[in-house]
């Protein structure tokens, strides 16, 4: 075991900033990371054990005790629950004879839950030893358990009904489907890898590239909508001998899965975007930060990178141009939504816990290893390539006044055709409901932009998806009238934020607990009107948190109280203010009764 650990550490040159990779590899080899292993890593890297634990215990896919030869992570997202996750969980528990959170006594199979794994278009889904198993049914579960008990290989358990497109590539062999429902003119249009790189080498200087992007008004697709040309320009001008380009493929916002599909079908487009960014900014290194839930793509993506090296698109002298050097590595995460926040992403890639940094300085001035760093979303890089190829003028013909081009949407929930839609900006929510096959009269609400976004009612279904109206990172969850909005959606989202807070800021760490607690109380019929008022007024405190997670963590509650207040009022009706309906005498005196030996 000691040899295994040392070999892994050697592979990363004993570099403590690669601690994430070291821990991921060690866990893959040994199955878990116990105190002894931590001690070995600590000795080899010459850093204190508590610092290794600091990273290790932050990420929920790392574990310190065995979680089974087969480890099942059942998706606990809202949409998974819509599609029968509870039943799937019950079948797993019955077949395995254990509860969720446990491992079978023989140590063979562990059953756990996890937050959204980016499969909302094919729920309920689970990850088993990092391989996605989408669209689960009770029969499929029974079969999977049977094969696991027979100790079949994961490939045998998967079977051979792989998903469409590159999902069935021999290095991926995944059961996932793309569900691309509508292709648009920017991302899913014709593409020949390498053309854009050829074009810039021949025709465009680095400042030309930036000018073209500025003219296109391209704004970041990761949610915040920062102008991409401007970001690259600041990074270009920033002082620094070394600069970095990061592609943010953490895609953790529940209900979002577009980057999964783009990476599956168009990885070269993503990487070419990073190369162009490198050219424009003067960076020679790129890092793709891939969420752990998408680690099943890693070998395939590595293979694509290798192909690009062989094609002369990565490495030195790209396209024969002296001084144009660029290469990309893949950094996997280990389960933490907050790592999608750009500075937490950088911390994580440096081997640390994913705790967002104070800003300023912004990553463009001081990012990865304190060097100027550009962080962009997967879709942003793809769009940049197409703008370089076709020109800003072409791009500006699409979309609305302030939102140019197209947007790739992840659509899921109660509709007939969940999946990926690339649409020009400017569609209304109603248009999208129609496309996805949801009948407006059956729809109670639409969650726009994930839990951190906005939950809108029928009254707003005519609003337009665009930065100037309903701005979104691209996910819509359709919620039908048969759902209990507060129980099925709000409670799940508040639980999500509580679990995912890094814990650094006081309001984020504590109020996420309190929001979940009070929503639970209301769902249990024990809430009062003052609970509703408190939830509304405390949201102001969340605005002062350090990062976007904490700043938006009360949104699920706030936007539903604003748009669906009557649902809350129905649940608290009849509960008297002065009396605390949540108080339970028996549980309050339980400790005392135990001490005095009374039952």
């Amino acid at each position: 075991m000691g040899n295994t650990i040392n070999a892994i550490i050697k592979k990363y040159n004993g570099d403590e900033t690669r601690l994430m990779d070291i821990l991921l590899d060690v866990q893959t080899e040994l199955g878990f990371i116990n105190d002894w292993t931590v001690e070995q890593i600590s000795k080899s890297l010459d850093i204190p054990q508590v610092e290794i634990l600091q990273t290790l215990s932050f990420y929920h896919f790392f574990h310190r005790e065995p979680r089974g030869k087969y480890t099942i992570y059942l998706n606990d997202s809202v949409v998974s629950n819509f599609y029968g996750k509870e039943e799937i969980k019950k079948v797993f528990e019955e077949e395995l004879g254990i509860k969720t959170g446990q491992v079978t006594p023989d140590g063979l199979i562990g059953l756990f839950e996890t937050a959204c794994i980016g499969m909302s278009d094919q729920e309920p889904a689970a990850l088993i030893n990092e391989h996605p198993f989408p669209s689960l049914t009770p029969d499929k579960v029974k079969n999977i358990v049977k094969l696991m008990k027979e100790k079949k290989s994961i490939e045998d358990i998967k079977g051979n009904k792989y998903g469409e497109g590159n999902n069935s590539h021999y290095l991926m062999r995944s059961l996932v489907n793309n569900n691309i429902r509508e292709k648009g003119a920017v991302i899913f249009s014709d593409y020949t890898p390498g053309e854009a790189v050829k074009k810039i080498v021949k025709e465009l200087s680095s400042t030309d590239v930036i000018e073209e992007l500025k003219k296109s008004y391209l704004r970041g697709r990761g949610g915040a909508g920062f102008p991409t040309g401007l970001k690259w320009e600041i990074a270009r001008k920033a002082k620094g001998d070394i600069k970095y380009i990061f592609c943010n493929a953490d895609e953790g916002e529940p209900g979002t899965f577009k980057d999964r599909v783009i990476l599956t079908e168009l990885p070269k487009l993503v990487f070419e975007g990073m190369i162009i960014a490198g050219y424009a900014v003067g960076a020679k290194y790129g890092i793709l930060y891939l969420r752990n839930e998408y680690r099943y793509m890693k070998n395939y993506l590595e293979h694509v990178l290798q192909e690009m090296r062989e094609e002369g698109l990565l490495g030195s002298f790209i396209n024969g141009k002296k001084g144009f050097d660029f290469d990309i590595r893949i950094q996997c995460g280990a389960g933490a939504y907050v790592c999608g926040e750009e500075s937490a992403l950088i911390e994580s890639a440096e081997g640390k816990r994913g705790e967002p940094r104070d800003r300023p300085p912004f990553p463009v001035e001081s990012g990865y290893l304190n060097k100027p760093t550009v962080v962009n979303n997967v879709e942003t890089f793809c769009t940049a390539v197409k703008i370089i190829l076709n020109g800003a003028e072409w791009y500006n013909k699409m979309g609305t006044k302030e939102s140019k081009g197209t947007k790739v949407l992840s659509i899921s929930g109660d509709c007939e055709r969940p999946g990926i839609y690339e649409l020009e900006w400017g569609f209304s929510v109603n248009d999208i409901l129609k496309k996805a096959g949801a009948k407006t009269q059956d729809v109670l609400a639409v969650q726009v932009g994930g839990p951190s976004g906005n939950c809108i009612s029928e009254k707003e279904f005519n609003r337009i998806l665009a930065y100037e109206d309903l701005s979104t990172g691209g996910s819509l969850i359709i919620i039908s009238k048969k759902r209990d909005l507060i129980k099925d959606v709000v409670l799940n989202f508040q639980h999500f934020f509580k679990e995912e807070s890094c814990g650094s800021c006081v309001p984020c760490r504590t109020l996420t607990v309190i929001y979940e607690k009070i929503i639970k109380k209301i769902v249990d019929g024990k809430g009062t009107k003052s609970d509703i008022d408190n939830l509304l007024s405390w949201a102001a405190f969340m605005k002062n948190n350090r990062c976007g997670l904490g700043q938006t963590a009360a949104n699920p509650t706030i936007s539903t109280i604003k748009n669906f207040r009557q649902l809350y009022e129905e649940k608290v009706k009849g509960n008297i203010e002065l009396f605390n309906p949540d108080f339970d005498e028996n549980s309050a005196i339980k400790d005392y009764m135990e001490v005095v030996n009374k039952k």
Partner: protein
Amino acid sequence: MSIFVKFTIDGQICLAEEGKQLIEAAKENNIYIPTLCNFSGIPPKGSCRICTVLINGKPATACTTKVSENMDIKTSTEELENFRKAVIELLFIEGNHFCPSCEKSGNCELQALAYRYKIMAPQFPYLFPKRSIEAWHPKLIKDHNRCILCKRCIRGIKNEQGKSIFAYGKRGENLEINIDKETSKNISDELAQKCMDICPVGAILVKEKGFTVPIGKRKYDYNPIGSDIEKK
């Protein structure tokens, strides 16, 4: 030569060296901005958020902000003061703070802030978490009930070999401070005292020593926190 800049805090014109931490710059102008996770001399990490002010209308933490020319700063608006009160209350309800039995009582920054903000009963429900007290270390006691997770010990303490002794464990509501068994093994009495002093509350205590200064004669017993800055 250092350059001085002019800026305003709640309309009052102030002067300080350019790039100075806003907390310090305000102090030099006799204005107290409450802090908890900040500790003079160690790099800031805006985690408690209590020092939040408005800078040109936007919220930002004063401990991580450097002053510049013409900055317009607001610190005593009703909204900000309500926010600070909330932060203090949240710290009380998320831990277990029984001040009368705490060695740090009277010297504790959290307790002092609660007095300054005249906090009686918190507006939030108590969470009563189950937390432990660690006493395995030969010189230190770590009381997790009182820890406000401000990171001052992590940022400010290294052992004689320059290695960290403290680090965070876990995340979110389970966040905790861990002490390294190896790197903390042979710390000197002085360093142990420094650990206790850097902690704003009674979460790190030195063993076998207590109440050397009696209650009633401690730092904040007569003078509210911040009053030394405001009186000058």
